[in-house]
């Protein structure tokens, strides 16, 4: 069971630690009047910890700390506001849209975007909600298959997902906790590569990947796949995880892979691409190098699992490509 690690009470993740402790600093001083009433009957010992409570004077009046569900509610309303600005998956735009973002920006970025234009023609943005790697990867993958109609991918993926399922069960996950997510993703794959009849249209794929009831569930599928792979090869991933955080493998998966909104790093990408046998190229848009440098290089890194089918490999048109800018992934399309 995911739950049995027991250490669940411990907030190890520095980020969540901040969030859970900060709002509480002004928290109530807990022994309120109710505490006193109860004490009256029983008498002893408590005085030492009681602030000098004199009906209403004891607790300094301050703004009441919002309850956690209120905080969550507020977070959700902020998210909803963000959602109004940017879909989970945007429209395909010419690369010039990216250039426009940096019009008055850093020279290195401008030079690099120009250089990027020699290889890539379009970009599709994703919402920066911490799920952008998984969502971008999902959309790029499904869109690729929609175009290629490579029917060998369906049985291959089914097989992969079955393996992942067995792995999760072997680690101790209860099947009903992840099955629904796997199913929703398979539904999308089958709509893109139908065994009979017509595939869905690209705009239908966009609609689905923008619908939280589909998109978030499919993202969660990728998180489960990633978590299963990291845990299956715990020995391999452990040093990388220790380098990133101070968490053990299990705790890392629980706090940095499985929760929605947790950002992806090399560990996640390696695990996901290995587990599914789908390569991905990450192109880095950063400030390294100088703008006037003739030999300005745009770095990229290919994640190529050994088991990848030929059709997805680098040097084919099937290679999925994501553009990385610190903290965010968008989808890139070759010219």
């Amino acid at each position, binding site marked *: 069971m995911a739950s049995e690690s027991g250490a669940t009470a411990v907030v190890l993740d520095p980020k969540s630690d901040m969030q859970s402790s900060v709002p509480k600093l002004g928290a*109530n001083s807990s*022994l309120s009047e109710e505490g006193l009433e109860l004490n009256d009957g029983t008498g002893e010992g408590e005085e030492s910890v009681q602030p000098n409570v004199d009906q209403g004077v004891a607790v300094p009046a301050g703004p009441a700390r919002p309850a956690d569900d209120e905080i969550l509610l507020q977070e959700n309303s902020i998210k909803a506001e963000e959602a109004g600005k940017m879909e989970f998956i945007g429209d395909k735009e010419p690369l010039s849209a990216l250039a426009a973002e940096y019009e008055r920006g850093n020279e290195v970025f401008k030079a690099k975007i120009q250089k990027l234009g020699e290889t890539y023609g379009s970009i599709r943005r994703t919402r920066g909600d911490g799920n952008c790697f998984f969502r971008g990867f999902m959309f790029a993958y499904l869109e690729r298959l929609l175009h290629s109609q490579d029917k060998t991918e369906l049985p291959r993926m089914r097989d992969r997902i079955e393996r992942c399922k067995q792995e999760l069960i072997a680690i101790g996950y209860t099947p009903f906790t992840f099955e629904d997510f796997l199913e929703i993703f398979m539904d999308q794959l089958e709509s893109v590569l139908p065994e009979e009849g017509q595939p869905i249209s690209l705009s239908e794929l966009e609609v689905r990947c923008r619908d939280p009831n589909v998109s978030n569930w499919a993202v969660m599928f990728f998180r489960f796949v990633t978590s299963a792979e990291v845990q299956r090869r715990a020995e391999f991933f452990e040093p990388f995880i220790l380098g990133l955080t101070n968490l053990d493998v299990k705790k890392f998966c629980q706090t940095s892979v499985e929760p929605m909104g947790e950002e992806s790093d090399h560990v996640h990408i390696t695990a996901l691409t290995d587990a599914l046998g789908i390569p991905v190229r990450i192109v880095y848009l950063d400030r390294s190098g100088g703008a006037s440098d003739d030999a300005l290089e745009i770095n990229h890194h290919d994640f190529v699992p050994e088991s990848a089918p030929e059709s997805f490999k680098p040097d084919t048109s099937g290679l999925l490509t994501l553009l990385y800018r610190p903290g965010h992934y968008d989808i890139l399309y070759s010219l």
Partner: protein
Amino acid sequence: MASRSRLFKEFKEVQRDKKDTDIVLFPDESNIYRWTAYIKGPAETPYDGGTFQLSINVPENYPLTPPVVRCNTKIFHPNVHFKTGEICLDILKTAWSPAWTLQSVCRAVIALLSHPEPDSPLNCDCGNLLRAGDLRGYKSMARMYTKLAASQVKPPSI
């Protein structure tokens, strides 16, 4: 709706698997989104001998978002709000994932009773006792409230 079918699966699982005798967990008769749990205070803690009632409210997009859990039984613990019963537990907030179930959340709350986290207190007085190393003070307070508020709590026979 996906959350409903997931909750029914959890309901079936809870009914099937009764080996965890420290937890009695059941949904409202007319509303699968509202659950009640009774958890036993763990042995070798000042909560031993007490039974604590939790109310669990499940949001519509569960299990993508966590349930809201409150402790209805008065308890003296650094991570439970003394007045509202709000529980400070990472998995109920940022570290939530659908891999958790209502049952495993209850187990996590029991684990929290055994392992108080005085550095992120909701009950500052309790947290201060622990941080000051006054284990004896903490234990006697916690035991007293267990005796006063939690020793008579009994789950309905279901």
